């Protein structure tokens, strides 16, 4: 091998040595400044979101006993996608009431979306305060109605009722409607995913009666007038609030931010789309007069 062929390699090695000396000198000269900068960066990291997002995030827990909403994966995906652009929020829907309530006992930085009936049952236990009420067709309340296809000879003990609410909630509404124990046996309540399923199960003879919202009945009358004409309204419940957004009483700053965020949802198409997934069209701040009704 000729020495001339090694020259370029030697040149490169010399260059590298010079470069490393230069870096070393610079670091020595500015080491105090560099250390200060690094310290500042670390402080900023921890003060401003350095803590893992999950631990610092505000959880939004959702469970609805009044509607059998079971599109949990889509809800989680869509709400997380929307809410993450507005702050450290994380949406968590629940299919089981016990798991939902178990979470409420484990923290303070959360908001809950739940039915007004459920809110009334647990507000005292978890020290919750209501912030917003769901709105549909310009109203914060809705009635539930009991319909049947052949109301004559209805024997409540053997009456199969289709309902998109939980069994507990259905029993409670029936008690309100009849002003006493309805006589409907718990095991005869068939829970279905949607109000329209409950209505069709009556229309097509699978169940004898259905407990649904008045809004769903009106909508069904428009969609399938032939079938709905064969049904009769048996009774109706008093007006009850739609979904409630609530927060622990101690979580003041969170509730204010959430009120703004949720109210703004209806003004943007992306936000509106998410509200519609909950069967609502917007949110409204809880008024003083609502508070009394919510406790009833």
């Amino acid at each position: 091998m000729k020495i001339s062929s090694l020259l370029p390699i030697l040149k490169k090695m010399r260059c590298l040595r010079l470069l490393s000396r230069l870096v070393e000198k610079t670091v020595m000269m500015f080491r105090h400044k560099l250390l200060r900068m690094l310290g500042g960066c670390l402080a900023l990291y921890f003060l401003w979101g350095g803590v893992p997002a999950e631990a610092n995030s505000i959880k939004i827990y959702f469970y609805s006993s009044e509607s059998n909403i079971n599109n949990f994966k889509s809800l989680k995906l869509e709400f997380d996608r929307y809410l993450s652009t507005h702050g450290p929020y994380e949406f968590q829907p629940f299919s089981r009431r016990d798991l939902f309530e178990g979470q409420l006992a484990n923290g303070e930085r959360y908001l809950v979306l739940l039915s007004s009936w459920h809110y009334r049952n647990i507000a005292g236990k978890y020290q919750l305060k209501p912030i917003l009420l769901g709105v549909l067709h310009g109203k914060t309340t809705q009635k539930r109605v009991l319909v049947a296809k052949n109301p004559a000879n209805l024997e409540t003990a053997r009456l199969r009722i289709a309902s998109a609410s939980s069994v507990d909630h259905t029993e409670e509404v029936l008690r309100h409607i009849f002003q006493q124990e309805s006589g409907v046996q718990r095991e005869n309540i068939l829970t279905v995913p949607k109000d329209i399923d409950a209505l069709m199960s009556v229309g097509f003879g699978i169940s004898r009666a259905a407990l649904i919202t008045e809004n769903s009945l009106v909508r069904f009358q428009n969609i399938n007038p032939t079938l709905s004409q064969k049904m009769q309204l048996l009774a109706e419940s008093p007006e009850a609030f739609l979904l409630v957004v609530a927060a622990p009483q101690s979580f003041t700053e969170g509730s204010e931010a959430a009120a703004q965020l949720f109210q703004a949802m209806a003004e943007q198409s992306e936000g509106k789309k998410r509200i519609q997934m909950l069967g609502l069209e917007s949110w409204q701040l809880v008024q003083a007069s609502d508070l009394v009704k919510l406790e009833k």
Partner: protein
Amino acid sequence: MKNSSFPFMPPAINSLKHSVIGIFLGVCLLLPSLGMAGGQGKILILNSNASIAKYDLLQKEFEAYISVPFISVDLAGKMKLPEELNEKMQNYGQDLIFCIGSNALVFAEKNLPNQKRVFASVINWRRFPIGNATFGVSNELLAGMQATTLRYLFPKLENIGVIYSPRLNKEWYELARQEARQVGMKLVGHPIESPDELDDALEELLPKVQALWLIADPVVISSKAAVQKIFRESDSAQRPVFAYNELFAQYGAALVLSVDLPTMARQAAMLSESLLAQSKGGVPEKVQPPAGSYIAVNANKTEKYNLKVSEEAMSFINKIIE
């Protein structure tokens, strides 16, 4: 390994304590099967294959709902049970068998004749000999339920096309046409006698309709190639396809409208309990239609085909496919 015994007690007392705990746990576990659950009768749950997610879901929901004692046996996709399981099944003394899937129903008919049976998740149950003791929840949503749901989801949809075999689905088509008319939609049918006619049917039908309704017709869905053709041609014609099974989502179905499995399990449980308590009331309906629906919408497809989903129906969608 840690010793789990109690360190300050003599071994005899330790072993006695363990026995007491063992007996207590045993009693707790045995309580349901000893008939302490408040209902009457016993149920044998026969699962065609518990490793299939939908069968497993049906079993879990059924077990959560019923109040009578039960045991479950998994056929694991086979038609013959190991001796031990077979003995367990034969000796249990069940009053009713809940059959999950077609295999379980066939197995029960063959090996446990003359026992009351309730089936669920049996595709096209009419192809099986249904005796007096067999009851069930069918796997297919009624045509009227589907038409009403379609109208609810897509208020602007006016006409839908369907390709069907008159030999297998003439009655279904006639009924579906009437039901569709009741909700203000026109169902345009195209009968085919053999799979060879599919090309012509698609060519003729697609320009006349706004969407294609795919039904479980073996003459239409005769092969994978036929399915691919249906979706390819529909896409070329800018027509969405509405399917009855989530399997079709991978081919590009804009909507999947199928049975809600948990509701089906609850129906089967209610039916089973009413059969067990039959002395109290009348004979239930032999085979009832499913009461709950499952809706999956492909947001990209509905947007692509300019198919607007009703805002009010958004909360009814179980899954948004993207």
